[in-house]
Structures are given as C-alpha cells and as structure tokens.
C-alpha cells in the first residue's frame, strides 16, 4: 500500500513538473471557464454564449469554453471575484463590460480597477440611444433639449442604473446641451427602463441600441439619436448626437469582450490574444449575433488596451463632478 501511495505521489510530481517545464505550447489542455458577471439570459450572457460556441473547433482553441454566471450588484460581485479569487492560469477567462467596471472602480467600493485585468479581445459594441414612446411629441434631440430648457430639471428619462453606459450618456447630454435633466435609474436594468418609456412613466429614456431596435420593430418607440461617433448598421436612418449638434463621443458605448486576471503568464495571454479574435470572426458566430440584433465590433488586444486607457481618462473627468 505504502509503495502504491509513493508511486502515485511520484507520478503526480512528474506530471506537475512536466506541465511546468513544458511551458505553455500545449495550452489549452483542458476545457476553459468564462465568468460572466450578469445573470443567465441577459444580453451579456446571451452574447458570451454565442461568441464562445466555436471555441472547441480545431482551428480555434480546440477546447470548449463553459460559461459560469456570477451575477450581483451590477456586475460588482463577479468582477470582485475575478480580480481577487480567480486563478491566473489562462483557464479562467472573464467577460468585461466597458464603461461599467471602469466607472464602478472610479466610484469606489470595489476591489478592482482597469489595472487588475488583462484584455484579450473585444467582440461587441452596443451604443446607447435616446428613445421616446411612439406617440411622443418629440421628434428629434433638439425637441427634447428645447423642452428641457423650458422646464429645467423636469425632463424625466430612464436608464439601466447609475455608473453604467446609460448614465454616462445622460451626463454627456447634460454637459453638451447645457441643461439640467432628471435621470431616473431603473433597478430592473435596460428592460425595466424600456418599460418605463413605453408605459409613459417617463418622457424618454437612454437604452441599448439592440433592445431599442427591437422595441421599434414592435412599434412601441421612436429612436431619436445614437450616442456614438458613426451611425449604426442596424439603424442607418437615425442620426448620431454629434450630427444633431451635440458634442458627444462614444464614451457611453457598451463594449463587451474577454479578459484574464492580472498575473496570467504572458505566453498564454499572447496565444489567447491571437486565437480569440479569429474565433469571433467565425461565420456561424456572426450569423447568430446578427439574427439576435447584437452589433459586433471585433478588436484586438492592443486596440482594447488603448480603448480602456482612453475610457478611463474620459470617465474620470465626467464623474469628477458627482
């Protein structure tokens, strides 16, 4: 018996040392897990499942990616876990939402910041749009701003919460138009904020482009403007805020992508950064994303690093006044 145990221990030792000495050429050798900090069925979870569905293909990672949901407190629970407890071995990936986690880290009370994570690649960009109910008297952003100027602080409009893209867009609008607005954060996320607009509880709302597009197809809302640098392929007829004379950039666009915890070995980061974007380009993935009304925007690791840094700068300035 003793001999057996000793032999097993020896075997185990050689296996681990072998893996260590062998470097990371064979990565990945087992299935990978990806943490999503929102609940099953939400937009981030839904898209994460689609973009990772081809991970097991031979031309991709060759190993499947399993989604693990850690929802709570607007994503803070999942990202706290990812920054402090996730193993930095390349087998634990996480989904990020910009500007959410950067805005939360500026606000404080969380255990992460942009420096706690290493981006791998970006898969999607969902801009914020301004929506009003289908029977609303507003037909353009200038109608909205004129109303707000005539009734300071009385233009109620909904969004998915504080320190998320919608809130950033609201702050930008206030600043660019020089008016005081009444932003009403909703505790049920984008869906709740959209319901408030359709039911007439508020005069307008900031919402995700993908959800607003669907609501417009259903005949419930009008979309007045896109908070992005360019018009979107899904809504070629809707002008950007900039076109309508408001100096607003893409700081509120909800970028979604894949990251790993700080401390993950560089060769593994490089390998993932090389393969993951090609996985997103797969035709089946693109088809499913398009069918679901989810705008794709593939970015490499270097582009994402640049975007994170730029975003942190803008958000610090915007949120400084709060």
């Amino acid at each position, binding site marked *: 018996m003793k001999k057996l145990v000793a032999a097993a221990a020896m075997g185990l030792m050689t296996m681990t040392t072998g893996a260590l000495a062998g470097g990371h050429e064979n990565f990945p050798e087992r299935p990978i897990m990806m943490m999503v900090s929102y609940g099953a069925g939400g937009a981030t979870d839904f898209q994460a499942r689609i973009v990772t569905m081809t991970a097991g293909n031979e031309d991709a990672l060759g190993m499947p990616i399993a989604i693990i949901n850690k929802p709570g407190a607007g994503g803070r629970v999942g990202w706290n876990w990812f920054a402090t407890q996730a193993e930095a071995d390349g087998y634990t990936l996480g989904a990020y939402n910009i500007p959410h986690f950067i805005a939360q880290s500026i606000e404080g*009370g969380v255990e992460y910041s942009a420096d706690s994570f290493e981006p791998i690649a970006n898969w999607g960009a969902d801009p914020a749009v301004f929506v009003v109910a289908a029977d609303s008297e507003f037909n353009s952003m200038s109608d909205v701003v004129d109303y707000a100027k005539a009734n300071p602080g009385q233009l109620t409009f909904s969004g998915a919460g504080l320190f998320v893209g919608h809130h950033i867009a609201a702050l930008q609008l206030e600043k660019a138009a020089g008016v005081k607005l009444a932003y009403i954060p909703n505790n049920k996320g984008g869906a709740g904020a*959209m319901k408030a607009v359709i039911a007439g509880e508020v005069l307008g709302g900031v919402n995700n482009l993908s959800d607003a597009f669907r*609501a417009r197809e259903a005949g419930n809302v009008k979309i007045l403007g896109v908070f992005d640098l360019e018009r979107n392929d899904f809504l070629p007829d809707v002008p950007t805020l900039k076109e309508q004379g408001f100096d607003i950039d893409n700081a509120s666009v909800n970028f979604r992508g894949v990251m790993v915890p700080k401390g993950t070995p560089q060769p593994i980061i490089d390998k993932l950064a090389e393969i993951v974007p090609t996985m997103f380009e797969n035709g089946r993935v693109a088809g499913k994303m398009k069918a679901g009304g989810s705008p794709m925007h593939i970015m490499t690791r270097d582009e994402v690093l640049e975007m994170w840094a730029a975003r942190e700068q803008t958000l610090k300035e915007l949120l400084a006044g709060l």
Partner: protein
Amino acid sequence: MEFLAYFGDVFTPINFGLLLIGTIGGLILGATPGLSPTMAVALLIPFTFRLEPAQGLILLGAAYTSTVAGGAVSAILLKIPGAPANIATTLDGHTMAQKGQGARALQLSFLASAVGGVFGVLLLIFLTPVLAQWALAFGPSHLFWLAILGVTVIGSLDSSSVVKGLLSGCIGLWLATIGFDDIMGAQRFIFHSSVSGGINVIPALIGLFAIPQVITMFAKGRKSLDAEVLTVERHPIKDAFREVFSRTRALTIGTLSGSIIGLIPGVGGQIAGLVAYDQSKKMSSESEKFGTGHSEGVIAAESANNAMVGPSLVPLLTLSIPGSPTAAVLLGGLLIHGIFPGSDLFDNYPDVAWTFINSMLVGQILMCIFGLYVAGLAAKVAQVPNAVMAAVVLGLAVFGSYSVQNSMGDVYVMMALGTGMYFLERFGFSAAPLVLGLILGPIAEANFIQGSMIANATSSVGQYFFTGALNLTLITIVVASIAYSAWMELRSRRYTTKDDAIEKEEALS
C-alpha cells in the same frame, strides 16, 4: 380562434417528443431544490441552438410550466421550497406529508396547478392585447403600494401571533437591505464578501425552511423511530379530483389572483402563491385550519403559481419587454433564431407563436398526468428514517444553494440563516413572513425611490403617490387588509407562549 389552426403542429412526432422531454425533465429539475424555473430554462437554451424555432420554444415552454409545478414536490415532501413561488405550498403541504398524506397533497397540488395553468394560458390566448395594457398600467407608485399590500399579508401569515409575524417580517426587510442598493449603488451592511451581492432569495429560502428541520431531526437522534412506523396513506386519484373541484373558493381565488399578479412585470411569480394563500385563508369558513395540513391552502397556493405562467409571458410576447427573469431567458431563446417578440412574432411567425402557446396548454395536462403518476411513489419519501432523511436534505440544501450562482458564499448564507431560524422557531417565529419581507423589501424600496425621483422632477410626492384611480384602489385594499387583520386579532386574541410553540413543534415532528 387562430390558435386552433396550429394545434396539429404540437402533435408531430418530434414536437410531441420534445414536449414530453421538457415536461418530464422539468418536473425532475423543478423537484431539485435550488434549480428554479429561470435556471432550468437557461440550462436548456444551448440545446435549442440546433432546433427549429418552434421546437426550441416547445422545449423551453414545457420546462417552464413543469418546473413551476415540480417545485411543489420538494416543498411538500422535504419542506424545501424550490423557488419563491412554492413557499405557500410548504405551509399546509408539508404538514399533510408529515401526517402520511403526502400522496394526497401531491395529487391536489398537481391538479390545482393544471387548473390554474390552463386558465392562465387561455388568458394568454384570448386576452393578450387587453392584458398588455393592464401590465403597463403599473408604474412605480402602484408597485410600491402593491409591495405594501404584500407587507400587510405578513402579519396574518403566521398563524401563532401577529406580533411575531410582523417581527420576523422586519428581520426579512432588514436582510433585504444588505449589499449594494439597487438604484444608488450604496453599500449597506457588507461585513463579508459573500454578502456583497445581497442575500439571494433562493439560498435564503432553502436555509430558512430546510435547516431548522435538519437540526430538529438530528437532535432527536435515534430515540424516536416514528418516521418508520408512519404509514403513507394511499389516496385514489378520483378522490383528489373530487376534492379539488369541491374546493371552488380556494381554486377560484388562487387562479384569479395568480393570473392578475402574474401579469405585473417584476413582481409576479414570487408573491402570487403567498397572496393567494392569504386571501383564501381570510375568506375561508375554516380559516383556523390553515397551517395544519388543510387542503385549501395547497390548492390556493399551487393554482396561483401555475396560473401566473401564461400571463407572465404577455409583456414579452406583445411588447417585447421581459416581465420576469424567466421571460428574459425565453427572450434569448427567441433571439437566437432571429425572431423578435412583438407584432413581428404574431404577424410573421404565427406558426412559431401559436405552436409555442398551444404546447404550453398541452404541457399543463401532460405535467398533471405525470405528476399524478409519481405522486403515490414520491410520497413514500416520508417513510425514510430521520437520520438518512436529514443527511439527504442537508446535501440537497448545500447543492441547491451553491448551484444558484456557483458561489460558496451562498452556502454560508444558507447555513447561517438556517441556524438562526432554528432558534427563532423555538420562540414561535416562522420562516414564511421573513422570506416575504426579504422579497418585498427591494420592490418597495426601489419603486419608492424611483417614484419619488419622478415626482420631484414633475409634480409633488404626495400627488404622485396618492392620486389616480389605481393608487387609490390599492390604498383602499391595503387599509381594508390591515383593518381585517386587526379585527380578527381583537376578536380572538392569538398569542403563543413558549410552551405552546414547543408543543406545536412536537406535535408536528
């Protein structure tokens, strides 16, 4: 009558096969503590990637209906409500099971579920456009008053004492404040990282109901072997039919309040069962029997939580707004096939929409048949010796809490709350009001804050919360509900001494 044209599609071999798989699988998943309907549906989404849209939805719809009903199995036999919808079922159902009437309780619950469920789906078929407007009518001020109405139920839910019921409701309200607050993101009472996301309702439910029972079983040790001498009464299905349909009052109240409450986005499923239970208790001529294994309690609770299934999909199917977490998951199932709910769904994909709705109708019946079939067998669980039972329940409790968010933190929360509840129960407090406080706290708070933000921007708080027909109606019901409880309290002073509580505890276990 458009839906009749698509009935044939439900019975093609593949579709019907999927319906069977969804129903049976859903019953099993639903009976597993911690696997709520939302999670069961989310788990099945990847399987629908390769199916046709209608087939995928049949699978998801069948799983949704039968997990809601399957939750009654663990609620009745193990006293672990699988989801908030089943809390009210434990109150009388588990007591019946302990008396050896588990088979009867299960049969009643499946029959009542089917009646409620069929009614709910029929509402979805015939009244969707009307109901959609009704669902939108509830703004922040109305949801606030609705939550307050729920709070008034707390006092009368505990059969031993109004004061103790209210006290444990307050503990629940306090627990609900832990974590980041929903709207402002402020941190409250976060003393450990496992509660930073707040107290999740499902681990709390499992802990509060199952753990005190496990401790009691262990405490008894091998001294009493009563579980083994307990005879499980056989109960003919025919009698169950007769009983369900003779309890028309409970059945009607359950079905109606379930359908109405299920329709309101964001509140629905969680409190439908409890409100129906409370209402039928107040209206019943035998209200003192509630909580002692009375069939009306099971019938009202179960007909309500299945009646909610159909109407809860109305906002999703017509307005493209998911009104509940489960509806949000179903939305993902539709989007993956490029189908947008709303007018697009009924105009361009009527085959998908109506086949889905019809399959839920057929699913309710199938669920009832399978449920009745297993009821007799499942009730034998009551004969399992205490020691074994305690271990099994504890194992399921840990598994169920962990699986909600893959987090050990939830397991600690479950154990801590459960241990605390054991001592509270010794002093005559009960778990149901506490859980209700935990569920209603965030609803009342978030809607009050949102409502007052809107009110401050447009009119005044007083005007926003106290004018309008719907607000006034809800306030009237709140006042009536409190007055009724107060009157009942004065008429027959109910209070429990420690001795009574222990006596009751011993009589039950």
